[in-house]
């Protein structure tokens, strides 16, 4: 079995003491930022990205991905105990999880959240391992036309799933694509939109943009909101759910895992969407829907399984095709490129240690998270007592040091400041930065593949619909757009994001 051999390779990498330590560090930091509202995993990954430069590629990816799925665990803890979603993906966990806590069943709610997450994480790890080989074989057949169409589909997906106005999301994608093109044109060596600044020849620093938009800008906005937290003092007398509760949760966990695994792979998808969809499904299929919102344990198990599965399977397009499906995966591309690795289907064969090591580490990380979360839950909750006024100056300082350390450049700090201010403007006008950062990452790739495809077809745009895989991808894009425009779906979409 290739699969077993591959996983064995993976575990031999992930189980080295150094990588175990980085995995632990990743999930620890992830849990921490998941617990603390106001620091999103995307911010944390952006801040830590520059420091992974000195690590071996596998260790860097193991740690960064640990932060991402670790945050899914941490986010549910605060959602249940404090009714504060630490992350957007735990918003629905608040609904029933916090009700359970109020009824004195905080322990079972936390336990089921951890169990569901671990279960989903295990299945998702297997799915990634099984699906990635055929997918990257398929991807090796891709020519420029297929890559271009795939990226069009990915960007359309990010538009469909952006909060708020779809037109604004389109504008943000296009802005990102345009800014991604700043720098020396690879085909002709001519500088484009560099304002004559030599440093911009390599393009606008990705880390400066990401930390500006997601780190500093978020601080500026968060500080204008009132910072009050009321802690519910819950007794964690009984931790384990009853046998009946566990049994009730199994179907919800299975459905949640399935929903999360599918939605995670979709371009633009990921953890948050998966948990919303799973909650809706559980409520619809339940024999007693009136219990939902009043402490139904399935309402915790389903979404928690879904968000963890979705978080993990969103690695599939990145690992196999080299195309990031959401903004966090775009940061992962950034992390790989810092290491000098061009993400794509060749990574699996050229860097099997990296590829399978990261996958195996996901399962180990999930195991660590269960151990880290259940017994230590009291510790995490006490962290919430750290006031934001102490936390945020530290975040600001780390953002600065992180950005500066990329190339010891004052220009990068200036760009970070500029994009922080632009980011505040985006928030105020209701334009989401996630499609922007995805466009920014894909801009140069998309242009290159577009130009190459058009060159090979001697300027005939029909090449994109004549090649079957490319055509199929474009049909999917068209379907997605059609669905977006349908009035019924539009109303539904707004309704979902309203909640």
């Amino acid at each position, binding site marked *: 079995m290739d699969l077993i051999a591959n996983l064995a390779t993976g575990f031999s990498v992930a189980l080295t003491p150094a990588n175990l330590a980085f995995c632990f560090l990743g999930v620890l930091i992830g849990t921490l930022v998941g617990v603390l509202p106001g620091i999103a995993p995307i911010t944390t990954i952006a801040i830590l990205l520059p420091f992974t430069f*000195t690590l071996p590629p596998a260790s860097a990816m193991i740690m960064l991905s640990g932060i991402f799925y670790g945050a899914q665990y941490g986010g549910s803890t605060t959602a249940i105990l404090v009714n504060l979603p630490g992350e957007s993906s735990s918003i629905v966990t608040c609904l029933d999880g916090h009700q359970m806590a109020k009824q004195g069943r905080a322990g079972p709610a936390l336990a089921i959240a951890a169990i569901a997450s671990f279960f989903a994480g295990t299945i998702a790890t297997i799915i990634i391992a099984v699906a990635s080989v055929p997918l990257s074989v398929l991807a090796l057949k891709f020519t420029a036309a297929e890559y271009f169409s795939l990226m069009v589909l990915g960007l359309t997906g990010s538009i469909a799933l952006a909060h708020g106005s779809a037109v604004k999301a*389109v504008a943000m994608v296009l802005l990102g694509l*345009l800014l991604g093109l700043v720098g020396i044109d690879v085909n002709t060596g001519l500088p484009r939109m560099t304002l004559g600044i030599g440093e911009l020849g390599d393009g606008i620093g990705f880390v400066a943009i990401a930390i500006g938009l997601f780190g500093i800008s978020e*601080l500026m906005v968060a500080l204008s909101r009132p910072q009050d937290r009321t802690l519910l003092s819950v007794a964690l007398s009984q931790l384990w759910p009853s046998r009946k509760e566990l049994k009730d949760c199994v179907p919800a966990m299975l459905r949640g895992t399935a929903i999360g695994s599918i939605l995670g792979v979709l371009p633009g998808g990921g953890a948050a969407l998966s948990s919303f969809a799973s909650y809706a499904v559980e409520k619809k299929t339940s024999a007693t829907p009136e219990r939902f919102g009043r402490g139904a344990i399935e309402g915790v198990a389903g979404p928690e399984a879904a968000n963890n599965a979705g978080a993990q399977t969103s690695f599939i397009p990145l690992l196999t095709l080299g195309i990031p499906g959401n903004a966090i995966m775009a940061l992962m591309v950034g992390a790989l490129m810092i290491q000098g690795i061009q993400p794509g289907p060749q990574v699996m064969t050229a860097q099997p240690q990296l590829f399978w090591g990261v996958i195996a580490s996901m399962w180990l990380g999930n195991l660590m998270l269960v151990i880290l979360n259940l017994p230590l839950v009291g510790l995490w909750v006490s962290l919430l007592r750290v006031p934001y006024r102490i936390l945020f*100056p530290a975040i600001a300082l780390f953002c600065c*040091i992180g950005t500066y*350390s990329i190339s010891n450049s004052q220009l990068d*700090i200036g760009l970070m400041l500029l994009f922080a201010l632009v980011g505040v403007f985006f928030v*105020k006008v209701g334009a989401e930065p996630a499609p922007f950062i995805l466009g920014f990452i894909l801009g140069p790739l998309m242009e290159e593949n577009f130009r190459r495809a058009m060159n090979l077809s001697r300027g005939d745009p029909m090449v994109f619909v004549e090649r079957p895989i490319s055509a199929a991808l474009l049909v999917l894009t068209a379907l997605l757009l059609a669905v977006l425009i349908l009035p019924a779906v539009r109303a539904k979409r707004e309704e979902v994001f309203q909640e």
Partner: protein
Amino acid sequence: MTRVNTADLAFGLFLMAVAAVALYLIADLPMGSTSRMGPGYVPRALAVMIALIGAFIAGRALVAAGEAFPDIAWRPILLVGAAVGLFGLLLPRLGLAATAFIVVLVAGSASKDMRWKELVTIAALLSAFAVLLFVKALGLPMPVWPVN
């Protein structure tokens, strides 16, 4: 009372402005043909699309129900912004120890429930922590003390 959707109008105008600047900057780059695209082809196409969408959003805002621009809390924006700017300006001259201290002080004063004594303590601790972690442990090449 405003008669237009101010936020949308602002975003539309912003998009048109960005597109205009981009078109100006790439005015001299060759377009090429569809089979051999020059460096100006794709950026120009993107800028035109951005301008069109900007015009659409701005136009729609003019006929939409009036909505004022959301309130902006200037204090955190100015103080956190100043802290970031100071970091960039001061680090190469003053070194990390002093710069981190100043940056934390300035950024920290953005919070309404800031307490001076507490803030000075945090600034000192974070400055020491940053030097130990980033320069001593992680070995980032940045000066710790003022450079002459």
